[in-house]
């Protein structure tokens, strides 16, 4: 049986500051080496000061993934030399001297399958290496420490996955959960990274590192299974090792450095006293936790009668479900859900597009109401949405500027209908034998009004004039 386990690192991007100093957790907006201080640079004499908010956020994650949470947590030093690590040790957590990591065993469901979580630990991200120079001869390594000290949670799973597809599904679900908790924005570049352990029946465990995206992770796991199966079929021993994902060639390559042989000499970080997380704090955190994705979905279906598939899509994405929550009323909920899932998702499908757009929940509410009260046709609403995303003007301005409002003036509409009846005498005749034909005439009226005729009113007036 193929067994795959994951180690997922997720930055707590929604925190204000780094794990042990007051530099920004959101280092992305800074020029190189400008988001640093004596603490995150590990300067002589500096000491870490624990960001209590990070402990809370990590605890929330542990609770959301059904993990046990210990009464007291401790931090350890993981000692190794690497240029991206300013202290040449990383402050992290460890369970070998008792359960002192922020999260213990837990589980996540993917469909009907249970994936067990081994532990969750809170730790610091290292800096970032930048390689310059084309050949190994003139290659230089530059270090940007802006990221050093960014709060990370490491989520370790049991080897419960059997296929690359399960891995991918799990990561999507996990990423949705983390976003929904408001602790992280996994869509930010580098905010969520994963390593995988792969072993097949009769083989040893192989660790794959350096995988840039979830998409590549699925590929890397797939490649590794194929590689191991091919070795196995030829009776070649599969050795326990660490392999790196070669992004260009899309293959895994054996790491020359023997990372499995490294001795990290873990010991307690004396500069950070044990942190007690008493039951009251946990209760409070539990109470403040955002509604879970599954509970949202359930509510959308039962309360607003939104189709299950639509509710599923809507609830799992924090951006859209937040929009929904803000825009919807008792009466327009279905329409709001409809606009989001059929129109909006296609238009703002990337972070950049979302950030560039001037769209707000007020726009969404106005639009849904306008459709429901017949002020704009569904057809015109698409044009209005495009214009909103572009200009950010309010809906009523856009309707009047682009003349998108429904024609609902009886005399104006009657004139157009009279014209259509005279042009389409044959169709008018047919309506008497085949009542469905009237829809064709409604379509003609729509054509003449560029889709703006109030459909209900048009039908009424047509019926009256033809006399059916």
């Amino acid at each position: 049986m193929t067994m795959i386990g994951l180690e997922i690192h997720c930055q707590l991007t929604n925190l204000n500051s780094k794990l042990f100093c007051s530099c920004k957790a959101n280092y992305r907006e800074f020029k190189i080496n400008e988001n640093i201080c004596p603490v995150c640079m590990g300067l002589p004499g500096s000491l870490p000061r624990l960001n209590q908010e990070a402990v809370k956020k990590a605890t929330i994650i542990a609770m959301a993934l059904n993990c046990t949470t210990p009464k007291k947590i401790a931090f350890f030093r993981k000692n190794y030399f690497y240029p991206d690590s300013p202290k040449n040790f990383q402050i992290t957590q460890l369970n070998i001297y008792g359960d002192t990591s922020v999260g213990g065993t837990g589980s996540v469901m993917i469909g009907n399958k249970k994936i067990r979580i081994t532990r969750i630990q809170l730790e610091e991200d290292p800096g970032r290496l930048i390689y310059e120079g084309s050949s190994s001869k003139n290659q230089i390594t530059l270090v940007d420490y802006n990221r050093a000290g960014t709060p990370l949670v490491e989520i370790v799973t049991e080897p419960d996955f059997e296929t690359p597809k399960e891995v991918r599904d799990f990561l999507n679900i996990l990423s949705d959960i983390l976003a929904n908790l408001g602790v992280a924005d996994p869509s930010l570049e580098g905010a969520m990274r994963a390593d995988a352990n792969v072993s097949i029946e009769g083989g040893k465990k192989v660790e794959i590192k350096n995988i840039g995206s979830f998409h590549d992770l699925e590929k890397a796991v797939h490649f590794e299974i194929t590689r191991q199966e091919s070795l196995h079929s030829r009776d070649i021993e599969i050795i326990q090792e660490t392999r790196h994902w070669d992004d260009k060639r899309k293959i895994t390559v054996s790491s020359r450095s023997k990372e499995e042989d490294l001795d990290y000499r873990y010991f307690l970080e004396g500069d950070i006293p044990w942190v007690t997380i008493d039951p009251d704090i946990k209760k409070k955190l539990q109470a403040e936790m955002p509604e879970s994705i599954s509970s949202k979905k359930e509510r959308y279906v039962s309360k607003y009668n939104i189709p299950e598939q639509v509710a599923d899509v809507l609830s799992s994405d924090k951006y859209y479900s937040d929009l929904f929550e803000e825009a919807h009323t008792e009466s327009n909920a279905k329409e709001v859900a409809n606009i989001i899932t059929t129109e909006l998702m296609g238009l703002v499908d990337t972070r950049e597009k979302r950030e560039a757009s001037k769209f707000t929940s007020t726009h969404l509410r106005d639009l849904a109401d306008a459709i429901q009260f017949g002020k704009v046709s569904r057809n015109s609403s698409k044009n209005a949405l495009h214009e909103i995303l572009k200009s950010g003007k309010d809906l009523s301005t856009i309707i009047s500027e682009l003349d998108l409002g429904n024609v609902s003036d009886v005399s104006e509409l009657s004139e157009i209908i009279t014209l259509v009846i005279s042009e389409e005498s044959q169709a008018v005749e047919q309506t008497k034998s085949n009542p469905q034909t009237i829809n064709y005439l409604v379509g003609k009226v729509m054509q003449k009004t560029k889709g703006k005729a109030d459909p209900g009113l048009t039908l009424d007036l047509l019926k009256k004039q033809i006399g059916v």
Partner: protein
Amino acid sequence: MNLKISALDYIQEVKIGNISAEDFVAKTIERIQSVDDKLHAFLSINDKAVDQAREIDKRIKSGKKIGNCFGMPISIKDNICIKDSKTTCASKMLENFIAPYDATVITKLKQQDAIFVGKVNMDEFAMGLSTEFSAYGPSKNPWNIEYVPGGSSGGSAVSVSAFECIASLGSDTGGSVRNPASFCSTVGYKPTYGLISRYGLISYANSIEQIGPLTRTVKDSAFMLNLISGIDSNDNTTVDNKNEDYLSGIESGIEGKKIGIIKEMIGDGIDPAVLSATKDAIAKLEGLGAICEEISIDMVKYSVAAYYTITATEAGSNLARYDNIRYGYDFPLEGYEFNSYISKARRNFGPEVTRRMIIGGFVPSAGHAGKYFLKALKVKSKLTKEINEAFKKFDFLISPTVPILPFKIGEKIDDPISLFLVDINTVTANLTGKPAISIPFSNSNGLPIGIQLMADSMNDKSLLQAAYALEQTVNLPEVPI
């Protein structure tokens, strides 16, 4: 001008206008210039010290609010960061390191208008007890310059003892404040762990070390403690002492107090002169109404081994950052791969630091931790238990600070084990987090002997009271320099 006054006397004299800060600081700098060639207490001198003192005089004259130090000249061990000045840890590894920030204790002393006359010598990265392991050469004992001043805060003790400043800040990981205080006949104070912020103190073994004052009198140590103790948001291990005033009630005496004499600290290997001084101190304390009684602390015999195992482990990690990539000394990076660069760059560590790095890489490593590091932690916790038990019965524990007299420079440098054993009486306070003080008590053939008192955690105030009582029984000769 009399440079030989205490901190409290200095403040009094400045307040009533008998002396000016500028005169005093200028004379102090002159004194340093005249004696430090011989003593080598200082690694760098603050060339703005006299100007800073003049500014303070101006503010005093114009009636402005002035800090409690009134321009008092203080020396600082070179492992405590002062913004924009060199902080070398007496190592070639940090030859060019200029601290970009102030340690918390420095910030506090600046607010109190102290003047830092210079940074003082130490064993490299505070590893040693003779100041012979300074990469910039040893300091000399002002009582006899052929002898070591103790260490690692040797420069601090020498500068106070030889009147090159009024007080000094050192750091104490296993006795590094108390040992040189004892060898140079000054007061040396190691507070309860967490009482003084370590932010800006360059770590050696962070879980047990503290900054501590070296002063002429016990009252001066209490005064310094008032200025630099207390909770600090930059050091998560600090404790709240609720702005305790350690000077108030310091003359309360020790009548009726119970004092335990630690048997293991006056046993084998103790110098007869030290033993007789200790007995004398006990008699003096009894004369003041204290009740003294012997006690055995079994774990003391393992304490030095545990101490070196734990400190080497922490040092191995704390000193890992010195890879010369971000700061350090002049050694260009180009042309090296990372691992070969750092192994070359790190050869700038001296022999004692290198020895402890090697031990520190070994004792906590996989396959050996159980035999060494974890066992050392066990000793630490058992020792703490025994000491806590002792403090249920006793108010204080007494011993000589160091079981031997100061030794000659070079005498023990090639015998690390016998050097390590000199720490036997001081490491217990560090391993257990308790406050301890060394009080100048006696003199044997011109070499000083200090007595150590230890108290339970957060009993710093009563410890200073006991130390003050003992200090009053002493009459010592003047330093011959």
